[in-house]
């Protein structure tokens, strides 16, 4: 019912037209063509061929511990996360987290014991849920604050006074989200497109279905595609001088019968030198903007770096890895798998890594 006002707010120039709309039979504006001027669909991947950024800043080592609660950080760094993308949450309030905790724990209890009703307020469920805001993660004002969800429970055969321990954790985040996309969402929507979960699959799906029912959102698998894996490999290698990689390990699958898996481990120093040689070429090009260039990494450099690694492998084993699929990249700084599992081992690079993944998640948005 509020649509006319909304339109006024967003497109002040045609207020006269808006009046007409309320008078006449009002064509439903949101079924409108997805090419409409005010529509967010200008961002739709299919229409704009939205792609991953072809150039990004190098991983910044940040002393994040000053900004972010170390306890939260410890949780984020500890586990390997299964990633999903999430469509914008409707009517999500960062101020209601306490109430959400109660609702989710009641929901889990009700689902766990089918056919038994559970009181939402003050329930003595065997699962305790805690929602909390991870302050200090957001990079820009448009980013919604990260939300951490933990589920605690007592083990089945625990002693009476044994404390509950965390059995599942997950988070929703948005780091450096595309500002155009975020601005296009009307009031009432919160965009936290990246969801990571770690713990029992059953709990993951319960949490997801509670979110779906409560905030009218959808969860889908988020794979880390070839390009992103290559990006991560390059970005991590780029940090070698600051914190040692220990190793650069890549796993490839080659589509032959029987399937062949190649584990390719590179000495960190060699990888660094290869990377620098790729970088140096680029740096020579423009000496004036050297400072700027040193920070930005281009997709071409990443491709050349990977090409270097592949041709090295080819010289030794006569096997062209381009024919295969990169499945996994791991270093001491973290590991990422094609299936959408990621582990970020160093808190110093967590923000930039999550920014890359946020970008991937936003690419998956249906509209």
């Amino acid at each position, binding site marked *: 019912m509020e649509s006319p006002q909304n339109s006024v707010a967003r497109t002040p120039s045609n207020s006269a037209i808006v009046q007409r709309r309320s008078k*006449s039979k009002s064509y439903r504006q*949101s*079924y409108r063509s997805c090419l409409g001027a005010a529509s967010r669909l200008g961002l739709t991947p299919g229409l704009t061929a939205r792609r991953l950024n072809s150039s990004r800043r190098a991983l910044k080592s940040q002393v994040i511990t000053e900004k972010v609660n170390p306890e939260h950080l410890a949780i984020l760094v500890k586990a390997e996360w299964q990633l999903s993308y999430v469509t914008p949450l409707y*009517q999500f309030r960062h101020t209601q987290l306490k109430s959400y905790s109660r609702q989710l724990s*009641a929901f889990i209890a009700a689902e766990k014991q*089918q056919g038994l*009703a559970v009181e939402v307020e003050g329930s003595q469920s065997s699962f305790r849920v805690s929602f909390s805001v991870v302050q200090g993660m957001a990079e820009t004002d448009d980013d919604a604050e990260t939300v951490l969800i933990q589920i605690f429970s007592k083990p089945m055969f625990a002693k009476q006074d044994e404390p509950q321990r965390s059995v599942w954790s997950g988070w929703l985040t948005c780091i450096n989200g595309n500002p155009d996309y975020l601005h296009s969402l009307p009031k*009432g929507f919160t965009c936290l497109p990246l969801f990571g979960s770690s713990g029992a699959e059953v709990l993951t799906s319960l949490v997801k279905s509670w979110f779906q029912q*409560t905030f*009218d959102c959808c969860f889908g698998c988020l794979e880390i595609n070839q390009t992103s894996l290559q990006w991560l490999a390059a970005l991590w290698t780029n940090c070698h001088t600051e914190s040692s990689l220990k190793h650069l390990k890549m796993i490839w699958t080659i589509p032959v019968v029987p399937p062949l898996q190649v584990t390719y481990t590179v000495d960190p120093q060699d990888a660094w030198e290869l990377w620098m040689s790729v970088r140096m070429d680029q740096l020579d090009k423009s000496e004036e903007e050297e400072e700027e260039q040193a920070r930005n990494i281009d997709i071409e450099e990443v491709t050349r770096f990977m090409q270097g690694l592949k041709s090295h492998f080819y010289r030794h084993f006569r096997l062209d890895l381009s024919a295969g699929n990169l499945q996994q990249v791991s270093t001491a700084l973290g590991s990422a798998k094609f299936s959408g599992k990621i582990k970020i081992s160093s808190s110093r690079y967590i923000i930039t890594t999550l920014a890359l993944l946020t970008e991937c998640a936003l690419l998956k948005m249906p509209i």
Partner: protein
Amino acid sequence: MAATINLSDSERSSPNDQSVSSRSSNRSLRVAEKERRKNEAEDPFVLALKYFTDVEAGTPVYGNDDFERNLVLVEKVAYSKGLSPEAISVMLEFAMSLRMGSSPCVRVLKCLIPATVVPQEAVVRAVVWLGVGKIPISTQVLFIKWVLTVFDMIDTKDQLRAVYGFIFSYVTEENLCPFICHLLYLLTRKESVRVFRVRKLLELQSKLGRQPFLLHLLSLYKVFCPELVTLSIPSRMRSGFRNHISPWKSALIAVQKRNGLQVASSMSLAFTIKDKTNSRKRKHCHLEVPALRSVVNKEAQTEKCSSRKVVPLVQLHSFAQLLENMHHIELPAQMGSLLGSSLALQYLDCVQDESALLRLNFWLGYALHEEFLFCGDGGAIQNSEDALQFLNKLLSAHHFLQEGFSSSEAFLYKFLNVWDGSLLRPQILGLLSNIPVVPSSQIGRLLFEPLTQLFFTSSLFFKCGLVECLNNMLLKWLTWHSVYALEDDLDISLNSHTSINMTLSGFKDSVMELVNFVGQLASVGLQIEGCQSLLLSFVLDFYETVCDTFLKYGLPLVVMPPSGVFYPALFALDPVSVDRLAYIMHRYKVNLTSAKAQEKLTKAFHISRQTFHEFNHYVVDMVSCLWNSKMFQPGMGVQLGEELLLKSKVPQYWTSFDLIHHPAFMSYAVDFHQKCWPGKKDMDLSSIKHSKPWSWYLEYLFTQGYDGLKQFVQSNISRQLTASDGQGDTQQR
């Protein structure tokens, strides 16, 4: 035992009874009045009721002939005609007050068959008696069962709702609990759901275990106040409450039938709670339309509409209810659920809230993307049955709303690039035809590029399907235009109704692009498929829409078909195609004439000279080919070298496509020839060309149903000239 005897007794007496009453109704008013007065004084039934009203407390039952006689009388009336509201009040009061002890109670309750309605006061008083008297538990149960049975016949329920708390207190009675829960279920309103009641029920649940009646009541509480209680109903649980009509069933139905009332039907309640999160189906759950649920976190809305009573959509079961509550319906927790119910779809048509539609679009887009674009494991092939149903549901929603959703549009633009042209073809083409007007700057990249690839690499049937789809798309665009052009002046931009920032000229550009695109597809397609008549038929369908854009849809735009379409239709082997082409050319002429006239008047638009030129050229060609037998003349669209024509050794090749020698009409000419000159041995088709037989031949063709040809001839050829080489009189502009 007594009851059964009485029942059979009443059945025996009933036909007699009925005839008496029907006869009495026929008598004059005077007699009736007199009888009524007499009856009032002497009617044993009235006396019996009086007995039960006045009887002293503590009167013995056993050996009491008065009591027995009066009760039998009441039972007789009850089982035959049913009891009046007053009688119900009296008898219920008598039974529940235990004035003659508890023994007659059951007998009275069993005969409480209402003739019309049950007065609410009587029920409320009886409920109060429940708490006062020492009624045996089984009788209490019977009473509640009776209330449940006649619930729909209770005249109003406001007072009953007012004593909700009182009724609720009986929940703790273990034997009564299932029936009280059912009664509460029927009486519950949002305001009756309170924390302490929820706690009480949960307490009972922990005592009694998972009982369906508790769950059903609690699930209703959840509908109203999901913030207080949550539960999930297992799929194997029976849905709804059992009904308890059995003690009264036969009598009630008999009485209601006699009184012409509808049999109370709402005794059992249907549940719509759907069980989900089946681990089996989890893999493809994105195609599942979510269940209707009410919103949990209402704090945002409560401030805004606390004054209004809000009704969750889940609570509405009929269109009438929907209309009644139209202005205070609460949207469900998941907008996608609207797609699953036809009633909700009606409501969706009126939803104006942008966020609500965006939510729906997010869900729909997500489902489509996951199923058809992100499926890594070939999921789409595995469960094409689910996908088929899903798309059909989506299509019927589109048809119902008469437009598509923006998310399905965005999905299609991507999907067309990866589609093989055969997976779920009818559905995908159906969705495609619902795409709203695409700006001409984007239409090529979004639609034409992928469609061209698909068109030229797919089968004939795909080609036909695509042309049909594009025809439907054009029809929808034109209809959309004509609806909104009627509201405004023609030259006003259309963005008052949509946020498509599109002016009339922009719209025209898009339509032109689409028409030209189909023209190109059709030209090449017809060539590839050897002018296949099925494809030609779909192409002509399309041009039947195109030729009438000005008159039918008020769009000042006329686009002629390319020669790649015109000539294959003109030289088609089947007469139907030629006839349809003639009809199309006739409509073009009517449209152009009318546009020309209007153009002079208003000067608001301009049809280019080029269009007139093309039209004239086609008409001249058509006339000289079909009528004047002047095929292959210089200046025509189809030209062949003189030598080549001579080489072919076709005699009088210039006549070979006139209405007599045209391959599509040759058989008619032969047939006509035989009918005209039955005796003639050698056939000379050219003899039809003479003035008289020629006009007979035309008449003959027109009677065969070639109306298009008839209209074409009438509008383009004046025949007062000599017929042997009749002159084509085409308009010149």
